[in-house]
């Protein structure tokens, strides 16, 4: 750090250090940079400084990331493990006593933990699968030669600009059992209304639909980028072999997209494991419980509820670490499956 600080002082004191970030600025730096070498008196010192600068500056440049990440993510991560082995109550933060595996035992014997785990899994499935399938379909269509292609892309991405909080508040009204738009539409086509707040699958589907709505366009763009990188000749030879559009999609596009699909599956799975804002706000007053019967309480909600509503931060830490371990298992499974897929496709 020190070396670059000195370098900063030097460049600041140079006569015309006006910020020049026009294209020509690089050439300016070129010309100005020669100046210090000419006043030879301190050149040995300068050379040493320069060498030091060369050596230290890469570390100085990457330092902020590692310092901030270390201080606010890595160290806390380890402390979370530590706290998960202690009794820590929100009401008495100074009194932390050793608990051993009490928090974990408490957790694994709680039906609400298993309920939250199950809900996280089903809501994750309900939101990830339709989301990625729709994204793939959408990307396929956006990959055609379209009028106003950029406009379509921007429109499909607008839900991404909506926060989970704002989106959920809207969906709460759309899914309102009495006056909501969804039940009104169901009634129009002659279907019975669904109690989207209280019923098990109904409320989970409603929560999932918020996630699907927000992220489908985003994933479609990622697929679109990958589709545009597929070489044309593959399609041409497929067409020569008599493959129709659907067959081309199935036998050319999908296999070429496999790494991208895997990537989005992993990212969406991570997102689903951490699902929090949508069920919290969907529940309104009973938000942290995930509905009156805990019917859509996810692990993320359960952690928040135990930590900040019930006030048991030790248990919340244990939930956080359990979530992490589950994530690692999911990631490992993903890796395993993708290896299997790769081998079988050879």
């Amino acid at each position, binding site marked *: 750090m020190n070396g670059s600080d000195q370098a900063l002082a030097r460049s600041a004191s140079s006569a015309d250090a006006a*910020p*020049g970030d026009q294209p020509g600025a690089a050439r300016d730096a070129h010309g100005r*940079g020669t100046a210090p070498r000419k006043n030879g008196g301190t050149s040995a010192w300068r050379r040493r400084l320069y060498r030091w600068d060369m050596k230290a*500056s*890469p570390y*100085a*440049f*990457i330092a*902020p*990331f590692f310092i*901030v*990440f270390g201080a606010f993510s*890595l160290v806390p*991560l380890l402390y*979370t493990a530590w*706290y998960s082995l202690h009794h820590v109550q929100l009401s008495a*933060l100074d009194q932390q006593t050793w608990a051993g595996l009490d928090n974990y035992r408490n957790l694994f014997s709680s039906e609400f933990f298993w309920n939250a785990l199950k809900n996280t899994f089903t809501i994750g499935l309900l939101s990830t699968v339709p989301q990625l399938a729709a994204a793939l379909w959408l990307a396929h*269509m*956006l990959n*055609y*030669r*379209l*009028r*106003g*292609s*950029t*406009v*379509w892309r*921007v*429109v*499909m*991405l*607008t839900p*991404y*600009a*909506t*926060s989970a909080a*704002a*989106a959920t*508040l*809207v969906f*709460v009204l759309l899914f309102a059992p*009495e*006056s*909501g738009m969804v039940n*009104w539409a169901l009634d129009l086509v002659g279907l019975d209304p669904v109690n989207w707040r209280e019923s098990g699958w109904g409320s989970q589907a409603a929560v999932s639909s918020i996630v699907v709505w927000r992220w489908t366009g*985003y994933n479609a763009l*990622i697929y*679109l980028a990958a589709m*545009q*990188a597929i070489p044309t000749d593959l399609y041409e030879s497929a067409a020569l072999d008599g493959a129709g559009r659907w067959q081309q999609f199935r036998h050319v596009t999908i296999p070429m997209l496999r790494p991208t699909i895997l990537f989005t599956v992993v990212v969406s799975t*991570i997102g689903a494991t*951490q699902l929090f804002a949508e069920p919290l*706000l969907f529940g*309104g007053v009973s*938000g942290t419980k995930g509905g009156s019967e805990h019917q859509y309480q996810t692990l*993320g909600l359960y952690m928040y509820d135990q930590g900040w509503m019930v006030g048991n931060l030790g248990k919340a830490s244990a939930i956080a*670490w359990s*979530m992490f371990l589950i*994530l690692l298992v999911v990631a490992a499974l993903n890796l395993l499956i993708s290896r299997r897929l790769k081998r079988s496709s050879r």
Partner: protein
Amino acid sequence: MTISDVTPPRAGAEKERAGAPGPAARAPRRRVMGAGKQLHAGPLTYTVLVLFALVSLAPLVWTAIAASRTNTRLAQTPPPFWFGGNLFKNLETAWDQAGLGTAMLNSIFVSSMITVGTVLFSTLAGFAFAKLRFRFSTTLLLLTIGTMMVPPQLAVVPLYLWMTDLGWANHLQTVILPTLVSAFGTFFMRQYLVQALPSELIEAARVDGASSLRVVWHVVFPAARPAMAVLGLLTFVMAWNDFLWPIIALNSENPTVQVALNQLGTGYIPDDSVIMAGALLGTLPLLLAFLLFGKQIVGGIMQGAIKG
């Protein structure tokens, strides 16, 4: 970067398809593909796309409709399909009584600080990883990418305890500091600079005796500017929408927009039209950004953005 960018003339679209700003490695392939393959979309495709677009936009439009109505009207069936006259009254109520005014200012401040920090630190680190030689650089880069796997939940309990100890609970720096850097941003800038910044340019500056900071200011920043803009937009969206940590770290006295929306949504006497006005307000800045920079945001995500 104006509204006209969102609807470019066809020539502009072609240029984009050829991969103009993207990593050069991909460019030749894209160009080959742009030449022949793309089939024209048929009427069926347009129909389905219109449906997708409706599903994307309808909830937002309906938010505005609901925000312009009264609470009693929202409780009737069928729900309103057109605007009423109560928009400004509801916005005012949300702004004053629900404290969305303060929340908006807080969110703007927090998101701006996070954006500046993330863009600056990501560019510096990305430049080091892309162009500078130093020991362990590959290992450190892999480590950086690996950190993306760490979920934020894992840090919140200790962070909460420490911030309470420091007396920082409810202060905005509590939200800003942990989010000031980004592994994704670092990787994003690295990928961009590997291609977009010619090594000769750096070497030439070096030969002339330019210090590292001088190189950064006069060579790296100008070359990185397009990617910095995209990363800045993506970061702003992400920071604005961040939920878990702000909700733990801040309370009703000093909320960000998301925290205020949560309080609005879990209020015991909810007025739906005011809640919708709040939701509209909370999304408005991002929708404006989309109107202005939609094309850049789309391009940034297509270059490989990762879900925050």
